[in-house]
């Protein structure tokens, strides 16, 4: 038997996993998303979009100036840390958002695996976050929202897995980190209360562990004040927090051209061009538009899930047996938890008149993607071919949009093909 024949016969004996297609597709999607995030991070060599707000207010932490930004210090402290390591360069500004953007892929996978108890759901959720433009663009810009989303995902993972006091303390500390980046992280306290006090998934008294969030919040704020040579006593932190809160509550005029009402985020009417650099014959752009199929998938699954939960509540009221079949019937806790985490980051913009922007939707969208991943897994387990084809379709759409997420040189005509709605450009 020749060597070639022996090789052929060995290859014929190799038993491929029945999930080989899923493994390869999700693996390639994750690799593609990681590569797209990391390439050309230093371009453009100047600030884009709102980067100046955060980089210029990160600099004082390295030179004893004053942070005049209207968010708590943690996000800017992290940017300052990477600027200290890498230098005050575009790569230095964007390094931590990139790290958190990569962590988001892993966190989404971990949360999906935990909630749907299936490694395939974990792989699909990680792949969806990896190839979605909303997540990619916020991993490549020195802005706070990608980092805030990491804290939301990490807190959610800690909250749904919390069973004992130390777990609740850890979850609370993560909530504290979320609030330390942007105040909207405070909505996670409601999830903590729901899981411990209302559902009793951990000792009910453990809800008092929320105090660790306060300690974490104080610690980072005090550090920020101390680094800029200011009083960092608890009273000073309280006064600074109060002042920021008043400032935010007064921002209600919606005159900034980038503002968008929360109900427009689902369409989406106004994604943002986070970077736009003209080049000969075209441009290098980065839009915050997500993968359109995933975006609409999130809308569809969230709406269907809300109806399923309402129906379930109605059946409980009428003492009728619960449906136990179908995606929502099989994963009622996952559905409840993900819908709760999806809605919480949106609530502040529904109940207040505070100026809102599409980036406020990023944490919610992450939970929506995990729910879509659960639904895709359900489809895949029942109709493998259709499930795999759906994943491939998502991947192909991302490849098509990748140039306008990764700031690749692209012709004006090709930009118009991708951002075909006038308010997207």
């Amino acid at each position, binding site marked *: 038997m020749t060597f070639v024949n022996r090789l052929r016969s060995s290859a014929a004996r190799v038993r*491929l996993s*029945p999930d080989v297609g899923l493994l390869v597709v999700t693996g390639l999607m994750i690799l593609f998303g990681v590569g797209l995030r990391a390439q050309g991070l230093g371009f453009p060599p100047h600030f884009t979009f709102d980067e100046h707000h955060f980089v210029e207010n990160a600099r004082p932490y390295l030179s004893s100036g004053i942070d005049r930004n209207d968010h708590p210090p943690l996000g800017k402290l992290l940017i300052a840390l990477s600027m200290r390591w890498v230098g005050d360069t575009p790569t230095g500004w964007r390094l931590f958002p990139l790290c958190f953007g990569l962590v988001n892929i892993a966190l989404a996978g971990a949360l999906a*695996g935990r909630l749907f108890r299936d490694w395939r759901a974990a792989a699909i959720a990680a792949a969806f976050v990896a190839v979605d433009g909303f997540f990619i663009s916020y991993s490549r810009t020195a802005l706070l929202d990608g980092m805030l989303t990491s804290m939301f995902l990490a807190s959610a993972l800690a909250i749904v897995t919390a069973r004992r006091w130390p777990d609740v303390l850890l979850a609370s500390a993560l909530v504290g980190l979320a609030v330390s980046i942007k105040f909207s992280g405070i909505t996670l306290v409601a999830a903590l209360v729901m899981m411990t006090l209302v559902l009793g998934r951990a000792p009910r008294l453990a809800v008092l562990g929320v105090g660790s969030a306060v300690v974490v919040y104080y610690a980072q704020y005090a550090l920020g004040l101390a680094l800029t040579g200011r009083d960092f006593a608890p009273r000073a932190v309280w006064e600074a927090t109060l002042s920021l809160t008043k400032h935010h509550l007064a921002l209600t005029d919606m005159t900034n051209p980038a503002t968008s009402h929360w109900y427009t985020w689902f369409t989406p009417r106004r994604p943002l061009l986070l970077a736009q650099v003209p*080049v000969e*014959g075209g441009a290098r752009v980065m839009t915050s538009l997500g993968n359109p199929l995933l975006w609409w998938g999130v809308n569809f699954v969230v709406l269907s899930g809300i109806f399923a939960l309402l129906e379930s509540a109605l059946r409980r009221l009428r003492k009728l047996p619960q449906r136990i079949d179908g995606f929502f019937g099989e994963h009622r806790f996952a559905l409840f938890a993900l819908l709760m985490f999806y809605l919480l980051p949106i609530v502040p913009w529904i109940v207040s008149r505070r100026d809102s922007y599409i980036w406020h939707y990023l944490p919610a969208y992450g939970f929506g993607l995990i729910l879509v991943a659960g639904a895709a897994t359900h489809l895949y387990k029942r109709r*493998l071919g259709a499930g795999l084809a759906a994943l491939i379709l998502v991947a192909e759409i991302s490849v*098509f949009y*990748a140039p306008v997420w990764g700031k690749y040189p692209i012709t004006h005509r090709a930009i118009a093909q991708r951002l075909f709605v006038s308010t997207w450009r």
Partner: protein
Amino acid sequence: MMAACKKQLRPAQGPSPRAQLGMVGLALLVAAALWSTRGKIARRPPLAPGVEIEAPITLVASDRDDLACSIEREVNGLHCAFAAPERSRSSGDRRLLVAPYLTLDRELYLIAGLFEQPAVRARAERDRALTTNRDAQPRFTAHCRLELVELVRDVRTRWSPSGPWSPPSEAWVARPSNCRIE
């Protein structure tokens, strides 16, 4: 979770593993075709001394006298109008005088004698003849070829004679050529 994973349904029906790999292969071909739909664009070379780039520079006629920079030393015979803020340097040949300009995408370049370029000078003279009021002068774009000379890290810029000096920052010093107006 592992125990739960073991109990999961195996895919009972659907394409065989080899057919799945076939689907992936086909998908990769489609992906390559989709990627190529972005069109062909010449990539700018990495910035380095001696490299030439095309830059669209946004200007108004009064920029000739309003813009200034400060660097202590000369850069290959080129110099700013100030050695330090409020310490002006006597300038002879305007072709050697460097000033700060922004491209359409807000990149800062320190360009020597931009307003000595024939097309830019002609356009500026025409606009100044219409009005000397800066706010009334029309903005135009000069597409120039820039030869990069050196990246300076301690330049300060000023956008009007009475304006404040910026903190020190970095920018490329460049020599212009072949400017055309749009």
